């Protein structure tokens, strides 16, 4: 029973990390940008967060205020991610570069630059570990409520934030004018333009905000899931997030469930007794396999609502025929 609870908790922690990336990418994709730079964005975001935390730690000589210790990296991460989004938008919207190439370039660039940044503060890696306890502190009472507390109240602040962001995004996308306009831009930019919607502004905005949110996944992964250790595997989480967007059919609130499924597949290998290291890696492949199955199923069903935005991956230029 306890192993099972631990498994579930671990599942949720990884799942919600992925949910950040998927929500961010979903917002970006709803604007028609197929941003394959998400892994790089998450790396850069996480590195910005870590560096900011490190600076804060040294400037106050280790006497960190808990709220600031969490807030500063979050803000730094968001800004770092948004900057990556800005670069992406500049290339694809203003210079009309190919989206796939730009995205892949940003991933390569992001992994490199984040490793460079982290190398500079590697000597102070203990600062992340110090910050970690603020990130993973559960809600009060979680210790006294047995399995219930363990399963629902024991998570760090980022996990709850991920769920809140996903639900909020869903509401904005489906229930507001802003969301309607954003979806229109992604479905058919020419139509949106003719309706008087500023396609450029929406694409820039959605991509920057989306990348900022996705980057939060990076810092969550480092501070929460890895427990304050920087490992050079953040980009793999990024690719999982991109796959998750397809799995959840571009619906962030439904994504909460999907993220848990993804997380479960990914961590399952550690909780199944008697499997060796090689088989473990096979288990980690499951999320991608599931994504392909989902892709095939939705393609066969061919419900227009489950399909990616029609304008996904296409740049828009008004005076082109």
């Amino acid at each position, binding site marked *: 029973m306890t192993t099972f609870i631990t498994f579930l908790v671990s599942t949720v922690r990884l799942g919600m990390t992925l949910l950040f990336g998927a929500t961010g990418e979903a917002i970006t994709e709803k604007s028609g940008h197929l941003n394959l730079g998400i892994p790089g964005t998450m790396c850069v975001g996480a590195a910005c967060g870590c560096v900011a935390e490190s600076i804060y730690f040294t400037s106050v000589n280790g006497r960190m205020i808990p709220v600031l210790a969490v807030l500063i990296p979050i803000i730094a991460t968001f800004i770092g991610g948004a900057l990556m989004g800005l670069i992406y938008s500049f290339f694809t919207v203003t210079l009309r570069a190919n989206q796939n190439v730009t995205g892949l370039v940003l991933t390569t660039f992001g992994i490199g630059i984040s490793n460079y940044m982290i190398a500079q503060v590697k000597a102070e890696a203990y600062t992340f570990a110090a910050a970690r306890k603020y990130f993973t502190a559960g809600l009060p009472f979680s210790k006294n409520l047995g399995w219930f507390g363990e399963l629902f109240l024991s998570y760090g602040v980022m996990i709850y934030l991920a769920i809140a962001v996903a639900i909020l995004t869903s509401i904005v996308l489906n229930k507001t004018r802003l969301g309607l*306009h954003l979806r229109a831009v992604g479905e058919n930019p020419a139509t949106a333009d003719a309706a*008087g919607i500023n396609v450029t502004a929406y694409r820039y905005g959605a991509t920057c905000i989306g990348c900022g949110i996705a980057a939060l996944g990076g810092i969550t992964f480092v501070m929460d899931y890895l427990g304050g250790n920087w490992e050079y595997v953040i980009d793999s989480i990024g690719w999982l997030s991109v796959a998750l967007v397809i799995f959840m059919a571009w619906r962030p609130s439904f994504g909460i469930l999907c993220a848990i499924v993804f997380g479960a597949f990914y961590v399952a290998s550690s909780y199944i007794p008697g499997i060796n290291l090689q088989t473990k890696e096979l288990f980690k492949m499951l999320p991608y396999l599931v994504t392909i199955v989902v892709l095939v199923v939705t393609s066969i069903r061919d419900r227009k609502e489950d399909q990616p935005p029609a304008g996904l991956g296409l740049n828009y230029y008004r005076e082109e025929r």
Partner: protein
Amino acid sequence: MKNKFAYTKRMICFAFSLFTLSIMAVLPASAATATDIGREYGFIIPVLAVLIAVLAACALLLVFLTHWTAKRVRRVRKEIAAVQAGETAKAAPAKRNANVPALELRHVTKTFGSVVANKNVDLDLKKGEILALLGENGCGKTTLMNMIAGIYFPDEGEIYIDGEPAVITSPKDAFRYGVGMIHQHFKLINVFSASENIVLGIKDGQKYKLSEVNRRVREIADRYGFHIDPTKKIHQMSVSEKQTVEIVKVLYRGADILILDEPTAVLTPQETEKLFAVLRRMRDDGKSIIIITHKMHEVLSISDRVAVLRKGEHIATVETATTDENKLTEMMIGKKVTLNIDRSEPVNPTERLTVKHITSVDADGVVTLDDISFTANAGEILGVAGIAGSGQRELLESIAGLHHVNEGEILYEDPTTGKTENLCDKTPLQIRELGVRLSFVPEDRLGMGLVGNMDIIDNMMLRSYRRGKSLFLDRKNPKDLALSIINNLEVVTPNEHTPVRRLSGGNVQKVLVGREIAASPSVLMAAYPVRGLDINSSYTIYNLLNEQKKKGVAVIFVGEDLDVLLALSDRIMVISGGKISGIVDARTTTKEEVGLLMTSDTRMNTDEKEDA
């Protein structure tokens, strides 16, 4: 404009070299800082430097990219402000009265690169009238209207709305001035409902609530006699329903000036009548309407006045009541044309294609072809008439091997070997390998016929690349073919390397028909080859079909204009609801007879489809 873009490109290169240089300069410097001073975060300086360099480059480029348009808009705004200031100084502003035209264009010019789309156009639209805009393909009708709707911005000239000068730089501006355009290609989002599409882009400060929108949409529909379901998704709608959504969309925005770009091209005659009734009701309600159409009888029946454009210039605006078809045609093309099609007697007609009892059922279980039997003879044009969607597309696709046939057979007499082949259930490739040459001009020219992003030469190669013997592609012959099509059919294009999607509709059609004919077919099927083409281009196509007939090709021509069908074909096959309702001799029959056959025995096939 071309030089301007080259300039921008140079700026981009410059910014990038700047960016790369800054990275190369700061990286070693940062490495030194990091080792010397240790943990002093010296590396942040280069990171920031890079970011600043990128942002600076972005800002610089943005400035240059927007510089040109911004300058022009500013100038016009200033001029208008000056005009308005002058007016207010003179006297109290003039009250809006019915005599002031709803819309006035003065000396409007627009160029794309070296192509002049509109030159010095003057046009005025009175309040409460329907103005038809007439002109050949590519004469700049749509471009002109796009400038009023804010899609393009005029290079020169002024637009006045209600007598006031107007600067329309975006569709949003156009809405503000009460101008709404219904484009030829619908600007609707497929996965949205009608209401969502209608409310898109409106910022009226009201709470976003779809039920309220639905109510207002129904209200507008009732007022003008539309039928619309506000909650229905666009992808579930028929073409005419989509058009209704487009019209309601502009009415919802309170448009007083409506521009319709070829609204009838996609409608059946009945739907067109319904649309015209609605338009007349709107006119009586005080709205001003501009309608673009190629169909002369529609111009004459719907419009109050007709404005004619030729090669981007405004020729004249005349009262519809005082003109006729011949006068308008003359104005449009600038020279007198004979409206007669030269029909020769069929030479030695022999059976080329025999269709026996074919039946086809689509995925929804609807019978699309019902026991169709006919023969197409060599050296003869077989016209196919029928209301749109009666099975024409399925019939042609069955013969071309693109459509599954449930029963029956299609027999083809090979003119070279004299053998008879059954084309049923063979793939298009197998049909070609059998030596059966079918050239097919699909209804959907950019979807099935041509690849939009490829240039004219490459599109020629789509038919010929299999013939190549060497490892490399033969580009010489396709290039010669492309050039000869451009010359012979008068395709308006900068050169043969232009992607076909950049050509206007009529020119795309010419390229497609030209290629199919060049394959020297023995059976030539053409579905609506003149759809969207002006009279001059249409006659070019008719002549091409006639030439093929003289060469002994069996031509199957699916048309919509009965006058043309009667003048061009030797025999006319009429289909109705997937069944043949009659095959008549085109020389002796009348329009009325064919019209009756078209509507006879129509099972409610189209209605069933809409419900499904």
